């Protein structure tokens, strides 16, 4: 890595003792000696293992659940179903007033995705829990499922989630989050070329080497200590408090040393049910995702579909951009309504475009609920935007890098979401990329600046 100090030399500094210094990491000695304590490195006498009975169907009504054989299985201490969960229907973003509550901790009457948690088995050993889980009998009536976002949005599609009543999230702005800036249709009418293209992704897993999980210990004083690898301590604690209808003062979360997150450990899934198990048995409980669960049950990055329609002039100026984004939330909201909205705030990318129209939808389908991941709401959008930029440049016969200079945002430029640009540095990144990659651009672009009124 090289630090190039010639850019922004008037404002950047090397004036500090500790900041800017390559100090060794304080956690690294623990890592290399195997001494760092992750949540699962704590072992408590009498600890129970929690295994989840999961839905084998993408969409089904639950006619009945019979746990009697499982409960009799040697080593089984407790079997939990929906009726055991005090506030079984929840949604994590309710803490920031993003509702409605739309997800069950344990399925109640219906499953909406293959892998959904239905029954929790707590046993003395992992093996006993697995064997008992195999003895839980669930009678399902399979329902039609929908996996394709466009299909899900059509009239007559199977309804994924009754708590929403339609297969999209209803924002205060309606069926999508909207950004309106200038007159996009006038821009298309004026443009020398109009290019509309569609981009698609599929779900992506965070795949941290340490799977999601927690270890819960009843402290004997009606408090519960939860060793967890959540990425958000109070977010998890406060949601747990709601789900278990238990004052937050009874909950003590210890964490902060995590074997990789990448956004995959921001859902509140393992902690509430494990704490409930510890409460109802009085025993320590561990609930740790298997690798298979981490790969297919934990929330992935959402699949997205992005349609971009641009009006571009022969001289390289983009004068109108319309973006329609679809985020595949899967069966439940989790963080997806936020992600789709974050996308609306990100488009049309780091470019100054006078006419912009953005609609972003959060769509429900019968698949594993998606949630946040590194680059949430932006990563796939950037893929679409930057491939589109390449296509536009080639369409008008312009060098793709020079084309970006023409449209790059600079300090003071008004963004589509009506904030003036501050602290821009796209132009300088491109200038340095031009140098380091030996991708020459015209001198006028190398002389540009992100500063207001920069050349």
């Amino acid at each position, binding site marked *: 890595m090289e630090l190039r100090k010639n850019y922004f030399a008037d404002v950047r500094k090397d004036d500090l003792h500790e900041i800017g*210094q390559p100090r060794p990491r304080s956690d690294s000695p623990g890592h290399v000696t195997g001494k760092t304590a992750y949540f699962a490195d704590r072992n408590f006498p009498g600890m129970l293992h929690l295994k989840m009975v999961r839905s084998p169907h993408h969409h089904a009504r639950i006619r009945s659940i019979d746990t009697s054989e499982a409960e009799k299985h040697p080593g089984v201490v407790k079997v939990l179903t929906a009726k055991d969960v005090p506030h079984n229907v929840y949604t994590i973003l309710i803490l920031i007033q993003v509702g409605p509550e739309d997800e069950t901790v344990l399925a109640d009457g219906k499953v909406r995705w293959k892998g959904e948690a239905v029954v929790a088995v707590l046993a003395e050993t992992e093996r006993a829990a697995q064997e008992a889980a195999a003895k839980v009998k669930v009678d399902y009536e399979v329902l039609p499922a929908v996996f394709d976002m466009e299909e899900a949005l059509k009239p007559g599609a199977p309804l994924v989630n009754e708590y929403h009543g339609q297969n999209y999230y209803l924002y205060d702005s309606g069926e999508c989050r909207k950004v309106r800036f200038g007159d996009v249709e006038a821009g298309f009418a004026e443009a020398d070329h109009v290019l509309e293209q569609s981009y698609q992704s*599929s779900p992506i897993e965070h795949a941290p080497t340490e799977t999601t999980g927690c270890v819960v210990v009843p402290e004997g004083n009606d408090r519960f200590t939860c060793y967890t690898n959540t990425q958000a301590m109070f977010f998890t604690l406060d949601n747990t408090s709601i789900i278990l209808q238990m004052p937050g003062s009874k909950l003590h979360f210890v964490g902060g040393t995590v074997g*990789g997150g990448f956004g995959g450990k921001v859902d509140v899934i393992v902690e509430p049910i494990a704490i409930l198990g510890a409460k109802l048995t009085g025993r320590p409980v561990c609930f740790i995702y298997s690798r298979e669960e981490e790969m297919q049950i934990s929330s992935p990055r959402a699949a997205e579909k992005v349609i971009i329609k641009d009006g571009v002039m022969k001289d390289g100026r983009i004068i109108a951009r319309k973006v329609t984004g679809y985020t595949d939330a899967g069966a439940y909201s989790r963080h997806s309504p936020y992600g789709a909205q974050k996308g609306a705030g990100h488009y049309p990318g780091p470019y100054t475009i006078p006419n912009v129209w953005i609609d972003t939808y959060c769509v429900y389908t019968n698949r594993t609920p998606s949630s946040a991941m*590194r680059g949430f709401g932006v990563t796939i959008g950037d893929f679409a935007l930057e491939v589109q930029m390449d296509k536009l440049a080639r369409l008008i016969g312009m060098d793709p890098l020079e084309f970006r200079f023409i449209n790059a945002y600079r300090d003071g430029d008004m963004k589509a979401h009506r904030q003036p640009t501050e602290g821009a540095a796209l132009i300088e990144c491109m200038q340095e990329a031009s140098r380091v990659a030996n*991708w020459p651009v015209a001198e006028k672009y190398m002389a540009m600046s992100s500063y207001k009124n920069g050349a």
Partner: protein
Amino acid sequence: MAIRRGRGVAAINYPTGMNLGGDPTQALVHSTPTGNFMVTLSSVDLGQGMKQIMAQICAETIGVPTDRVVVDTADTDTGPHCMGTFASRGTHRAGNAVIQAAKEARQVMLEVAAEELEVNASDLETDGQGNILVKGAPQKSISIFDVALSAHFKRGRSISGRGMFLIPRSHPEKETGAMKPSTCYAHACTVAEVEVDDETGEVTVLTVKNVFEIGRALNPKMVEQQLVGGSWMGISHALYETTEPYYPNRDHGGTDFNQYLMPGPGDLAETEIIVLERPSADGPYGAKGPGEMCANPQIPAVANAVFDAVGVRIDTLPITPERILRALKAQAN
């Protein structure tokens, strides 16, 4: 058979934090009797180095070496509230909270030192080595060790501070979408060079040259860790990763690290990282959040390079050999 070469570019920006939900984080700082400093947080270190960076920020602000600072993350019984580690917010939000807390603690520390040295606190400065000096008269000094002892056992002062950093929630306006999604943005531009085997559709990423603007590199070696690992993940997203290879068909999802594809140690592109610094107005010592955006520009850069190499557009991620081969066959017809 032909191995065809191409290159592509992409440029991006990325917001720091989650303004659209409201974004607070708190920190507490206090000294021990011998002048070491505890930073108490509920913020989570995912491996990106939160603990180390908060220690450096606290040390800088107090005026002691980093090894005099201990960071305790994360315990809800002791650590004050943090929204969490996501949205590239950790360093920016928690860092600002730590600065505020450390400043308050520093002020008490200087007041105690002033009493010991019988000067005004405003006339004092720290040397970054654990001493407090009188400005212009460095021979008149006291160690922070002695100041802390005095505070604890003689003067009855708590060398401590509270920090709170809040970005208030921005509610998007219903009709226009007017909003403030972030107060600062990191930037990047990546050029990728690939080879494509036009008989199998296999892509080899030869080089990626990444330029990142991140406000300020608080610890350059740790920044490098994030950026190198992020660049790898970007390439991985471009060419390999998905839990549903036949999306929207739900079948054949991978359940292990053999089936969930990521580049192995034999697939690494020659990776160059250049960092620029345009300090952000509200960042801790000018820092922005680089952790997420560093994995984004490689994806379109690789996609554009594939087109440059073989003349087909793959607009669906991941850009698998199968998708390339199908497109090449369609192009040939």
